[in-house]
């Protein structure tokens, strides 16, 4: 049996550091709140009901859709991870956080928020979160998103500083698992972010400032998706970290295998980035052979998720059986469903089964033509980022916020109900969107006001609206629980440590799995794979085709 942190007996995070981390993750949950309102309006629009005119502000559908995507997919996820991963790494290595780096992460995040909120609320940036040129946003929008990435770089640097410091004092020792998976996640992000960094700093920002007269829409789009597929794993892996390393403890189980967990994260580091063309199957200007190669690699990156499905469920089963569960499925009933942190994350895992299957269909090369840019796609990703991630991060909040504030969770039963309402809602919503998409319902479209309509969309639209309403209700209850915990939770009754589990199969000190710890090598290998997967396209395509001035059609 092996603990996955350096000092299992305890390591205290000082109150000042906790406060900085708290505010960083608060920004994330606030972004979730800010984005949910418009999510509701969009679900209702699919049901043919326009509630936007009752909104006090952000009355434009696409302005609201931009707010929804940017707030929920970008700010929520990154703000959370930028606080959560340094916290876990610090705990795992038993090393003090650097308050300068915590401040750096927080304040760049605040600046990013101010700029993007200004641009979006004043309708200067209704370009949707994908920011496809040549729709042109105000420079504050592009600069704000650059600062969001900078904030994540500061957090990534923080993880590396902690790891390098630890290694100096522990030569020849295995990296504690919890730290390893956190660092591997942000190492992947550093490589993945290269695409948007080049696109935003090299093209979109100077173009929006008038320094660059024209830009290259296909190149910007390709650079976006260079980052854009891997970014979904940056959203997902913090949830995986919780499922692998923390949830087993919360259910009384164990991590199945330390080496296999490392293998999974190394595979994500290697395979997350060279898959971006599967978002561009229907694009002109990219050869079909390159697309087929990315399809193959996308199937490859499905593999660590398959391994995760086995490992995580096995670790839950260990817990369920330790709690007296019998029979093939009887252990499921014995899991601590009354703990909202657990039930939210178990339900998140369940929705992810369907998220994963629909994702594999999206990646399926020619089959993608049936679903690309239809309502199927948001149906799919609300079962990945919209629930596997969002619901997991809500579940994490149920111990994390008490841990960071020292206050007892308020409204445990409300919290359990919240998770069920949200999960049932997302499944109904996705059922609507997926069936509508197969029936030709487009995504990213203000259907309540569209020039076209099909009678057969009625059921799909209604399910989308009903599911979206339940999701909104579930999310609002989450905020009630969190706000009440922060304001009225009983002081001094929060958890005193992070719930980390032990591994059934520990790491070795001389076996093959010690090679897994060479994150530098794996990073280089990932760079080589990316060069193979993207090199031929760039060699054939470059220099940039600067053909498009900016358009502000909003």
């Amino acid at each position, binding site marked *: 049996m092996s603990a996955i942190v350096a000092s299992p007996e305890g390591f205290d995070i000082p109150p000042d550091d906790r406060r900085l981390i708290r505010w960083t993750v608060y920004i994330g949950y606030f972004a979730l709140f800010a984005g949910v309102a418009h999510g509701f309006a969009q679900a209702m629009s699919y049901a043919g009901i326009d509630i936007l005119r009752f909104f006090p502000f952000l009355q434009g559908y696409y302005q609201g859709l931009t707010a929804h995507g940017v707030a929920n997919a970008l700010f929520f996820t990154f703000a959370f991870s930028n606080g959560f991963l340094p916290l876990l790494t610090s705990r795992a290595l038993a090393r003090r956080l650097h308050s300068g780096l915590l401040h750096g992460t927080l304040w760049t995040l605040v600046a990013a928020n101010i700029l993007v909120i200004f641009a979006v609320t004043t309708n200067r940036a209704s370009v949707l979160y994908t920011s*496809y040129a040549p729709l042109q946003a105000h420079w504050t929008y592009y600069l704000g998103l650059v600062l969001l990435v900078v904030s994540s770089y500061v957090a990534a640097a923080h993880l590396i500083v902690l790891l390098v410091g630890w290694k100096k004092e522990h030569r020849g020792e295995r990296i504690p698992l919890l730290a390893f998976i956190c660092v591997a996640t942000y190492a992947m992000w550093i490589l993945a972010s290269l695409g948007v960094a080049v696109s935003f700093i090299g093209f979109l920002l100077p173009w929006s400032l008038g320094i660059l007269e024209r830009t290259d829409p296909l190149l910007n789009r390709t650079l976006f998706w260079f980052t854009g597929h891997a970014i979904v794993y940056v959203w997902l892996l913090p949830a995986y970290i919780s499922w692998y390393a923390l949830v087993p403890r919360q259910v009384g189980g164990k991590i199945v295998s330390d080496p296999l967990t490392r293998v999974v994260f190394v595979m994500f580091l290697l395979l997350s980035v060279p898959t971006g063309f599967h978002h561009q199957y229907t694009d*002109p200007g990219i050869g079909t052979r390159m697309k087929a190669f990315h399809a193959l690699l996308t199937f490859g990156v*499905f593999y660590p998720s398959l391994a995760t499905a*086995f490992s995580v469920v096995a670790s839950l089963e260990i817990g369920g059986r330790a709690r007296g569960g019998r029979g093939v499925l009887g252990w499921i009933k014995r899991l601590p469903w009354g703990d909202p942190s657990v039930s939210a994350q178990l339900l998140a895992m369940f929705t992810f089964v369907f998220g994963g299957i629909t994702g594999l269909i999206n990646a399926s090369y020619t089959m993608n033509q049936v679903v690309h840019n239809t309502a199927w796609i948001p149906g799919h990703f609300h079962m990945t980022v919209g629930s596997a991630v969002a619901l997991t991060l809500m579940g994490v909040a149920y111990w994390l916020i008490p841990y960071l504030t020292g206050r007892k969770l308020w409204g445990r039963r409300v919290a359990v109900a919240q998770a069920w309402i949200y999960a049932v809602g997302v499944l109904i919503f996705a059922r609507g969107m997926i069936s509508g998409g197969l029936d030709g319902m487009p995504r990213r479209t203000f259907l309540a006001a569209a020039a076209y309509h099909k009678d057969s969309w009625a059921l799909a639209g209604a399910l989308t609206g009903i599911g979206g309403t339940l999701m909104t209700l579930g999310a609002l209850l989450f905020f009630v629980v969190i706000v009440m915990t922060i304001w009225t939770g009983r002081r001094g009754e929060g958890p005193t440590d992070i719930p980390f589990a032990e591994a059934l199969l520990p790491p070795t000190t001389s076996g093959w799995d010690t090679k897994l710890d060479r994150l530098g090598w794996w990073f280089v290998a990932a760079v080589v794979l990316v060069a193979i997967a993207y090199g031929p396209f760039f060699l054939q395509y470059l220099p940039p085709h600067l053909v498009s001035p900016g358009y502000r059609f909003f």
Partner: protein
Amino acid sequence: MRIEQYEKAFLGVGAAMLVVFLVALAYTSISMGVHLPGRAGEIDPAQVRSIPPFDEPGVRELGPGRYEAVIVAQAWGFQPNEIRVPAGSEVTFIAATVDVIHGLYVEGTRVNMMLIPGQVSRNTYRFDEAGEHLLACHEYCGIGHHVMSGKVVVE
């Protein structure tokens, strides 16, 4: 340990499943002629309307049962916005945008292409049955995106 045997079996079956899916995809693409759009030429978006074939958008018969539909996309409409072909015909869609990114999607088919400034989009589809299909822009292109549509009528 039994858990490791289960794990090996699970991962083995999972890998086999992925291989089967990939073989099926390769089969549809190579043997059934289901293709994705690829590289079909570059074009200056500012000059689209004066460069053949986009100087004369519309449907042309290329041969028996073979048609070409040349479409120009501009916020927020397609030109032409109605395409008529007889049932059983094979139609090659050739499209370009003059301004922002648009989508060209014929509902109920796999005609599904992005139109990106600077590039020509092209794909072929065979309409076997008579009927009417919605033609919609399915990529956000500005405030009037949801009115950008038309129809394909198979007679």
